[in-house]
């Protein structure tokens, strides 16, 4: 006997009626969003059902290499998402490479620390723990990294005259881009700080709610949620800092010039 209420596909279909209501509103108000709503809903359902199947197969095989491969694929997809959210991107493979590499770095470091510190499953790379944890960390760090990179490149382009004025006075590239990098870092950290500050008061975090619905005692669910929020904060900090510093390095050269020609 399970400690949670099992859902049937009919239950999901009933919930989907809410979306039909939204689509009706869109039609009535002439928003022309009904097509996109339908497409997004179908994508969400198909993607999640497929992920369910993949996770089931993955959990049945406790393999370090398979888990590492899935982690790599997740980071590569996250890199693509980061690239898509930028108004001005670093040209060539750099835009994609910096996003993916820093996601992988931050996600792996923090997930491995969590799996070998507070959680300690046996074996430590058990995909049942490693993959959902990495997914949550990557998903949230991705928002921070994409915001940080987008801000950095847009501000560097907008504040070009001020940056070059500092270079002309003999500032190094790191000094000249310091204020732009700081603003990018502040913007990147804001969603994570907001979500920590509002957790439990303004909203109940999704993971915690999911665990409670699945029958976990609220006290344990809360502890898991706190752990995850700390992990997300750590990964966002590490990933954003690495991504912004790597981009400052790529946006300049060894002669301390601002290289906006390296943006698309």
């Amino acid at each position, binding site marked *: 006997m399970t400690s949670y209420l099992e859902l049937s596909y009919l239950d999901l279909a009933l919930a989907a009626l809410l979306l039909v209501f939204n689509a009706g509103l869109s039609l009535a108000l002439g928003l022309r969003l009904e097509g996109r709503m339908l497409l997004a809903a179908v994508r969400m359902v198909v993607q999640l059902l497929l992920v369910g199947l993949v996770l089931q197969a993955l959990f049945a095989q406790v393999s370090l290499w398979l888990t590492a491969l899935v982690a790599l694929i997740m980071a590569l997809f996250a890199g693509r998402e980061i690239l898509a959210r930028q108004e001005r991107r670093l040209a060539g493979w750099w835009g994609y490479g910096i996003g993916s590499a820093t996601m992988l770095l931050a996600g792996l470091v923090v997930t491995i620390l969590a799996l070998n510190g507070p959680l300690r499953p046996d074996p430590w790379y058990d995909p049942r723990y490693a993959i959902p944890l990495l997914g949550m960390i990557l998903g949230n760090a991705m928002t921070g990294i994409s915001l940080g990179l987008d801000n950095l490149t847009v501000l560097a382009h907008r*504040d*070009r*005259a*001020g*940056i*070059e*004025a*500092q*270079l*002309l*006075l*003999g*500032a*190094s590239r790191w000094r000249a881009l310091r*204020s732009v990098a700081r603003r990018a870092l502040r913007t990147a950290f804001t969603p994570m700080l907001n979500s920590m500050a509002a957790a439990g008061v303004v909203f109940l975090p999704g993971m915690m709610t999911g665990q409670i619905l699945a029958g976990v005692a609220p006290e344990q669910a809360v502890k898991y949620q706190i752990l995850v929020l700390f992990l997300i904060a750590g990964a966002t900090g590490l990933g954003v800092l690495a991504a912004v510093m790597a981009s400052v390095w790529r946006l300049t*050269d060894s*002669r*301390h*010039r*601002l290289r906006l020609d390296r943006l698309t």
Partner: protein
Amino acid sequence: MPNHPVLTVEGLQRPNPQAGLGPLSFHIDAGECLALTGPSGAGKTLLLRALADLDPSSGMVRVGGRERNGVPAPEWRRLVAYVPAEAGWWHDVVGPHMPAQATVKEIIGALGFPDPVAVLAWPLTRLSSGERQRLALARGLLGEARVLLLDEPTSALDNESRGLVEDLLLARLAAGAAILLVSHDQAQMGRLARRRLHMRQGELVTPP
């Protein structure tokens, strides 16, 4: 003053299909102001940026006995001061834009600001375009640069302020600096420069 080149440029080139330069070769002697003329888009600003090493370029650029590639870029830009036509600002007030030099108040005063200490506390938003131009020039003149690259340094100034700027530039020339001056003011070029270079489509050509 003995005629020896302070700035020597040989084969300066910027290969770029949209905004190419050169190859260009010229020199400026100690105490000499060289005027750079040419229509808009001829490459005058690109040349100044290349000399200040703000854009990548190839070829030899030497100040005194020092070759550009042998000098760290931040040090190079203190030897070769470039004041763009539209200078950049990065702080809310004037003070943080000025290098920490003992002569800062003296130069700001010489450019027509009666109370230089008060000017340093002024917010940028209250500056007129002429005040901005004079303060940007003050910033460029504060160091010990041996070469001054000036892009339209008095375009937003009235006659009185223009005179003050020219007095400062003449003093720098007398002290042995070399100036490359982009200006559309023929009378000013006549007052400051003995030689002219004319540019068209990124090349040095004979003046029309």
